[in-house]
Structure formats: C-alpha cells, structure tokens
C-alpha cells in the first residue's frame, strides 16, 4: 500500500511536470500544445545523446538539454504558434498534433526505434522503511517537481516577466498597446514550456527508458491532468498530476490492470461532468 | 398604450467577482415604446441586456417578459418567447449567406423533425417556404434584400449591423433589444437606422435600446433609463432625464469632462 503511494506519486510527479509545461504556454497564449509529450521525448534523447553517446557528465547533459529545449521551444513557436494566431482552437490542436507526428518520426529516423536508458544524476542505495522502498531517483523526481513548482509560482507572480506573461494572457491586444514586448514574452513562455518538458524527459529516461514513441501517452496524460486540474491552474496541475498517478497505480492494483489507461479518462470525464472547467477551475479570461 | 409593461424586472443583481455590475435594478418597459438605456462606460448597460436576454444570467432578481418569468431561462427559450436582440460586437454567422443568417432566426418558431428534413416531405417544404418568406421580409425591412445571396462577411460593417437587426426581426419578436446599433455608422447610415427603428415601433414592436450616442437616443426614445455603477439613477421622458442633475453629474458631466 505504502509502496503503491510512493510509486503512484512518482509517476504522478512526471504527469504534473508535463502539465506544468503545458500550463506555462497555455497561460500566455491560451494554446494547448498537443506535442508536449514529443517535446519530452526530444529532451530525453538530447540528454541521451550528450550523456550516453558523447559520454558527457550527467550534469552537463542536463544543462545542454535545457538550453537546447529552450531553442526548440522558440522554433516551435515560430513554426506552430505564429502562423495560427487567432485561428480556431481545433486548428491549433491539429497543428500541434501534426508537429508531434513530425517530431516523433524525425526522432525515429535520427535515433532509431530502440529503447535507451539515461543515467540518473543521483546515486546511492534506496531508502527503506516499513517495507517501502524509495529510490534516490524517485526522491530526485519529487524534489524537482517541488523546486519547479516553487520557481514557476515565484516567476509568474513575483517577477516582472511573469507578470507581463499573465498580462499577455489576459489580453494580447491591450498588452501590445501598453508596450509589453509581447513577442518576447510569448517566446519566453514557449522556451520555458519546452524546457519543463525537457526536464520531464530527463527524469523519465533513467527509470522508464527513452524511445521515440514514448511521447504520445505521456503527453496525453499531461492533458488529462490539465483537464482534471483546470487548464492553466498551477496548483490544479500539480494536485491533478499526483492524483492521476495514484488513481492509475491503485486502479491497476485493486480493480484491474487491463483498464489502467481507462481510469484516467473515466475520472477525467466524471470530473468534467461535475465541473465543466476542471476541479480547480480554468484560469483564463473569458470574454462575454 | 397597454398599461401592463411588456418587461418587468425586479431587483436584478449581477456580480463579477467583487464587482457589482448590476445592483438591484428595477425596470419596466411599457408595450410599444422605444426605451433607451444610457449610462457611462461600465455602468452595466450591456450586462443588463445580457441578463434580460439570458446571454449571461443575473445572480438574483426576477425578470418577466410578456407575463413569463424568464429568470435563468436558456436564451433560446427567451428568444422563442418573443425577445430578440443584436450585439454590440457584431456576431453574424460568418459561414452563412446573408439570407441564411436571417433564416436561422426565422426558423425560431417552426419546429421541425429530422424525419421531415431527410424525407423532404410536404411539411418540410412548407416550413422552409415560410422561413424563406419571413427572412426575405426581414431583409426587406432593413434594406438588404438585394444582398441576400452574398456571404455575410462580404457586407460592409454598417450593413452587418443591419443584418443583425434583420436576423432579430425574423424571429417575429415582441421585444427587440438593440445593443449600440449605431456604433461604427456614419451620419447617413445612422439616420437610416433611426428611420428603421421608428418603422419598427410603428409596427408594434417594443424596442429597448442601449446607446452611447445620447443625442441619437433622445430623438427617438419615448423613455430613457440611466444607469451608473450598476444602479438605476433616473428614468423618464428624455426631456426630464436630460434635466436631472444626477444624470448630468454622473453621465453628461463626466462625458463633458472627458471631452
């Protein structure tokens, strides 16, 4: 039971990180990026290229990956967001899905289909108490989620740039009129959103291995989390993520492992029927 | 004039977070009049219109239209009870032709079944013919009949406003809510609009008008209601309201200072 909680939370933390990356982009430009999972995969593979193929230290691999992902985020914005500004949501959804397909297949061409592992940045024997095992990497995942959450909260509410970002989300047009460097703000949002999914990828690869097709299902879980928590809601994303991780592991253990993926969706649909904008409400400016 | 008002609203209140957009508004609109709602920006005019039409419900209060309680009723039910409206930000159906825009509303009271549509039976043809006739009449009234088959987005801005009015008329309403119908129109277009409103009034439709342009309003309104900070501060004939010091202070005064 205790073990299920630990593993459920570790899995949930990954979901939460994916959702946090989605949130950063959503909060700025009100776009849900359906290629977030593929960005995660890209992060994992960039990390592997550095740490495994080129045998750089893991810390260096992390740093390079984060920088590279920031650039990827900006390229992504130029290719996907700019041409579609102000277009209906389903076109944006489809474009990001198409972008995900492109990334996944490019990765297959570049890195091949074999699963690869990435060394964890932390080492040491797992903690054991009362029969529950917590690996160092799991602790590292929890710590990363906590730090990311705090930084993101601080960034969005306490820094000038974060506030600019929120203002941009409220009303892009007005933001531009009052002299907010809108494009730069959006670029920062995409860059950070991609970096966050890159971090999630670096965290996933040591325990779950990396393969080019890994993005689809992790990305999808990130959306389920976003929906449960309410799009763009910071605590919602984290609580929703952890919640989903627990539901999946407990559902698989005590109901049936056959329908594991269904639990996420059943809970999501149930939440939406009760609260059409997620458990914690959508944080967006609804214009009547 | 029929003594019983067609719209009776009591204690209509609407909050957005901490902001009280409408604060216990009472409103009576007698049958067959043109009544204007004026007030400075953010005074709650459009919010009141939204509450009346069901677009955005009031939190508390009671609203009766033609004797029916419509508080919290879905907008389409309110529309079918004979209340139609236009929008401040134009909301035409961009992917429909001009006549089809109007037909959407013309179908308001001709329920049809999928069976009729699929078999294209006599009832279906009959009701489509009715809808077509109503829609053309409505276009005729606003003077857009010649553009019936154009795509709605091809119309110039002022004509899109007229199209919205035609659409509202096509549902054969008893009450017509116009939200800043003259916005973006030039002088000639505004004059034509006033003309149209006068004709509509003569045909027996009660008109509730939200307008920014006070001078425009004063000319055609039988009654004027003035809102400020979500409260009703004055009501009466245009000439009375114009003399009301509260109104001058709250609305005209502030406007003048702005100018």
């Amino acid at each position, binding site marked *: 039971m205790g073990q299920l909680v630990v593993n459920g939370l570790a899995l949930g933390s990954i979901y939460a990180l994916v959702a946090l990356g989605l949130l950063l982009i959503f909060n700025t430009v009100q776009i849900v990026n359906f290629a977030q999972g593929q960005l995660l995969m890209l992060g994992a593979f960039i990390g592997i290229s550095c740490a495994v193929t080129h045998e750089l230290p893991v810390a260096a691999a992390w740093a390079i990956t984060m920088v590279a992902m920031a650039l990827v985020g900006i390229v992504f914005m130029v290719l996907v967001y700019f041409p579609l500004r102000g277009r209906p949501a389903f076109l944006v959804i489809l474009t990001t899905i198409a972008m995900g397909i492109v990334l996944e297949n490019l990765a297959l061409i570049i890195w091949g289909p074999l699963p690869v592992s990435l060394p964890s940045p932390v080492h040491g024997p797992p903690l054991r108490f009362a029969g529950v095992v917590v690996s160092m990497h799991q602790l590292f995942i929890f710590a990363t989620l906590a730090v990311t959450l705090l930084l993101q909260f601080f960034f969005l509410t306490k820094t000038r740039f974060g506030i600019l970002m929120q203002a941009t989300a409220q009303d892009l047009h007005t933001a531009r009129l009052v002299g907010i460097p809108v494009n730069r703000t959006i670029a920062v949002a995409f860059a950070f959103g991609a970096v966050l999914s890159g971090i999630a990828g670096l965290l996933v690869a040591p325990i779950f291995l990396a393969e080019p097709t890994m993005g689809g299902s992790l990305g999808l879980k990130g959306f389920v989390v976003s929906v449960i928590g309410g799009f763009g809601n910071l605590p919602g994303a984290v609580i929703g993520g952890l919640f989903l991780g627990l539901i999946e592991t407990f559902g698989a253990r005590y109901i049936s492992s056959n329908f594991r*993926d269904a639990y996420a969706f059943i809970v999501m649909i149930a939440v939406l029927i009760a609260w059409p904008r997620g458990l914690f409400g959508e944080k967006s400016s609804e214009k009547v | 004039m029929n003594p019983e008002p067609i719209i009776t609203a009591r204690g209509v209140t609407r909050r957005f977070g901490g902001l009280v957009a409408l604060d216990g508004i009472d409103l009576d609109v007698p049958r067959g009049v043109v009544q204007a709602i004026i007030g400075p920006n953010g005074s709650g005019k459009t919010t009141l219109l939204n509450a009346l039409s069901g677009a955005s419900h009031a939190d508390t209060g009671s609203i009766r239209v033609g004797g029916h309680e419509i508080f919290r009723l879905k907008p389409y039910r309110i529309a079918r009870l004979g209340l139609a409206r236009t929008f401040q930000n134009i909301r035409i159906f961009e992917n429909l032709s001009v006549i089809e825009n109007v037909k959407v509303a013309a179908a308001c009271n001709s329920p049809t079944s999928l069976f009729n549509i699929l078999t294209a039976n006599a009832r279906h043809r009959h009701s489509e013919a009715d809808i077509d006739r109503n829609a053309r009449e409505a276009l005729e009234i606003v003077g857009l009949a010649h553009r019936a088959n154009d795509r709605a987005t091809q119309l110039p801005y002022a004509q899109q406003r007229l199209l919205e009015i035609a659409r509202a008329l096509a549902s054969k309403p008893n009450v017509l809510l116009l939200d800043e119908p003259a916005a973006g129109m030039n002088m000639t277009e505004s004059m034509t609009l006033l003309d149209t409103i006068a004709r509509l009034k003569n045909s027996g439709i009660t008109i509730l008008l939200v307008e920014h342009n006070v001078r425009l309003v004063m000319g055609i309104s039988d009654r004027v209601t003035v809102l400020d900070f979500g409260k009703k501060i004055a009501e009466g004939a245009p000439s009375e309201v114009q003399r009301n010091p509260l109104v001058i202070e709250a609305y005209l005064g502030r406007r003048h200072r702005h100018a």
Partner: protein
Amino acid sequence: MKPPKMNSWPILAANIAAALAVPIVAHDGYIIQLLNIAILNAIVVLGLNFVTGWAGQINFGQAAFYGLGAYTTAIATKAGLPWITTPFLSVIVVMAASLMLGLPTMRLRTYYLAMTTIGFGEIIRLIIVHWEPVTGGTSGLRAIPGISIFGFGPQGQIQHYYLLIAVLLLAILIAARVRHSVLGRAMIATRDSEIAAEQSGVDTVRTKLLAFMIGAVYAGLAGCLYASSIRFISPDSFSGTQAILLMTMLIVGGMGSIAGCIIGAVALTILPEALRFLGQWYLVLYGLGVIAVIVLAPGGLASLASLSQARRASVH
C-alpha cells in the same frame, strides 16, 4: 458552405460518371480495394463534418463510432443474424453510445471536449481489446459474413465498389439536404457564434447533440459496411491514430464543405499508399503537409479547387 449553385450539378454529375467508370480502367484488386476504403473513410468524414465542420465541436471519438458499427455488425452476423439487421443494430448501438457521450459533454468547450472524446475512443478501444470472447480481442474478428440482402449481395470488389458509391451518394445527398435545412443552418450558426444562435432561438445543445448523433450514425453505418465488405476487423483500425487521421482528412479536405470531405478522405487514403516508398519520411512529410495546408489554405484543398475554378471562370 456557399448556397448551392446551379452550375455545381454538372460538376457533380461528371464526378459521378468518372467514379462509375473507374473499374473499367482499373480493374485490379488493389486499386479498387483502396478506393473502397477511401469511400468508407469519406462517409465517416462526412459524418464528422456534421459535428466538427458545421457544429464546430471537436470530435476525436469518430473512429470509435466507426469501430462500434463494425464490431456490432461482425458480432451480429457471426452469431447468425441475417445481414439485413446489422445496419439497424449498428445504428442503435452508435446512437446509444453517442447519447451517452454527448448528453453530459455537449456543454464542454474546445479542449475539454477534445480530451473527452479522445478518452471515449480509448475506453471503447480498451473494451474491444479486453472483451476477448466477444470481440476477438487484439486478434480481431475474421471471416465476417458478407453483405447479403435476402440472399443477394455484391460479389467481388468491383460490385462492392458500386454499392459503396451508391451509399456514398446517399450520404452526400442527406448531408446536402441537412445543410440546407433549418438544422444545417442552426449547426453552422452554433459554430460561428453560440450565443447569437441561442438568441436567435436555436437550442444549441440539442443542435450539437443532433450533429454528434448524425455524425455517429454515419460512422456506425460505414463501420457496418467496412466489417461486411473487408470481412476482417481488428481494434487497430479504429484507434486514436485513426481518429486523428479522420480529423486530418476533414481539415485538409476543407471543413464544412461536402466536396472537401470527399477530397480529404480520398487524398489521405491514397496518398500514404502512393508515397509508401518514403517509409518513415512519409510521416514526417505528412505532418508538415498538414501544417502547411492549415496555415496556407485554411479552407482546405476544396477551397484551392474552388479558387482555381473561379479563376478559370474569370478568364473565360
């Protein structure tokens, strides 16, 4: 989405004539089989067009309805029911499923609806995969009895082709009829401005639900024909990937345009076959191509076709 013009009828007639002539030119199995699948896809996409193209609701559950129709038919005919009952059974099953999904979710907005329909598709897929005794699980169902109406049924792919063309024409006719009726206008009005539609007396929830159900019925019937003409079904033909492909067909072909649905379905069924030699690169190009169409030709391929047609007309 423009009102029908008289001059569109000759074009339609020419297309029908061309379609009927195809088997004369290409009498081989591969192409006809491919076209049969393209036609089935076109019917499903026409259904999707009601929901997404006209009523403006994202629906990634269309592949699941397609699958429900196919599985209902396969299970029923394999259990010995006469084929003639299967279209009705399929319709009943997909209507029930679409009501179950649609009733509580039709008020959801874009992303929430997208996710809900993805979830629905996934749940249906999992049920098919794990309810092995009935659905054959991941191996699918084989040797499904063919179409047979009181002992008569199409033999061979070419006869199936003509049958499917006939069904497609019926599907087009119904779509066109709905489009130019109260219901079709209400759907598009709902998509363009939900609030303005409501204030014009349109019950938008009912309209969306109807669009959703009609779309599901199209998919269900196409599924019924799929099962009994391809005669083998497995869950991977109705997966989330397939749902995305259907949505892509709609958008690339031209949302809201009946011709666009058919162009999109046929193009994206045949293109991967024609470009199979590209292997992995095909999917890269497919993704980029979709983005290019969305960005450069918002009205899809159909709008390009009508544009060039208009240009030609202005020249003459």
